[in-house]
């Protein structure tokens, strides 16, 4: 059997969804032979592969860098899964959306910061006006909300893809 080429991507999130992925515990061992982890923050690969079967994206889209990455992943992936609340509805990163960026940076790096450091300017991408859920930027095939989504739900989704079942038949998951 051909192994499923899987990628996991970490955008503006806390990596909690990746932790939940690892939380599959011994099930990981069962799935491992059927999967090929082609790209992930968990493995040492710098470039996104030309083609993967399934991409799990964690996090909201908050910077132009996130946006470009999401588009690249979409272009090179057969199926894209929004993994977790941040990718599905913006979640915590989107809580900044009620402020505009100048206000936000001032609040965080001046008003609430020690000293008068001001916002960092080097080696950080600028912010998009809003932190967006993934589907506002690219097409998404499956949403797995949850903060984080339970490991069992990730297993269920992976199994469904491996078995070629309809993703729409998967049970809905709860936000939060």
């Amino acid at each position, binding site marked *: 059997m051909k192994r499923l080429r899987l990628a996991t991507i970490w955008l503006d999130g806390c990596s909690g969804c990746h932790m939940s992925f690892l939380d599959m515990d011994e099930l990981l061992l069962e799935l491992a032979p059927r999967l090929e982890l082609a790209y992930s923050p968990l493995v040492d690969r710098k470039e996104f592969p030309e083609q993967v079967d399934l991409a799990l994206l964690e996090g909201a889209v908050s910077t132009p860098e996130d946006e470009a990455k999401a588009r690249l992943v979409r272009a090179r992936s057969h199926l894209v899964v929004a993994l977790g609340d941040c990718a599905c*509805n913006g979640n915590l990163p*989107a809580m900044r959306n009620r402020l505009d960026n100048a206000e936000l940076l001032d609040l965080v790096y001046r008003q609430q910061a020690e000293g008068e450091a001001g916002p960092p300017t080097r080696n950080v991408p600028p912010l998009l006006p809003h932190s967006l859920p993934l589907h506002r930027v690219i097409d998404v095939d499956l949403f797995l909300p949850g903060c984080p989504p339970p490991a069992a739900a990730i297993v269920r989704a992976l199994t469904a893809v491996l078995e070629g079942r309809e993703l729409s038949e998967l049970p809905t998951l*709860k936000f939060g």
Partner: protein
Amino acid sequence: MSGGRVITLQIDGRDCGAREEQTILEVARENGIYIPTLCHLNGLHPVGGCRICLVEIAGAPRPLPACVTHPVEGMQVTTDNPELRRQRRLILELMLAEGNHICAVCVVNGHCELQELALQLGVDHLEVPALYPSREVDASHPRFGLDRNRCVLCTRCVRVCGEIEGAHTWDVMGRGLQAMVISDLNQPWGEAESCTGCGKCVQVCPTGALFEKGKSAGEMVKRHLHLPLLTAMRREEEAGE
């Protein structure tokens, strides 16, 4: 209130008996037929505002809210079909898009009617863009708090405060998207002289908009099963006067 004319109607193809002063929602529940609701709460006057409990009635040009529609002899009610499900879903999405509903950091995470409805109706993302309002949080009350960003304007708090507690501390100000729940003259809740501090509003709030202080995410459990009893007692008292 009891003893109205008895009529028969069909709900989802099942024959049901009902008294004419009952609502379709009540009849459906008596017969074990589930209709999702949000602004409705047993023991409070229904308002038909949230539109989640819409059902189809044969011959009606558009779906009607089950919580305020009364049965008519021979009425044929459909409580569930793909179209209704689609409409309810979209309405819920509108509601979720209107506020800032971040379940992960909400005190009622796991005990929230809105969250539960999203699960039931299959909402796992929003097709419409979120509006990200910037609404004031009122933490002036010593025991309770109000985060208007989580409010869905169901007006349960307004009703329980007016109808049962009799204080009428809460009402809705403004209109449209600017509508929001206020206490007294839009004062901080802690300064509202009419508030008795009974906390019924907190208990009936379906979301984390009204909460008890000192609870962290996931700790706040709402208790409102006693409401119908309060209503009945109140009615009895009034009748006895």
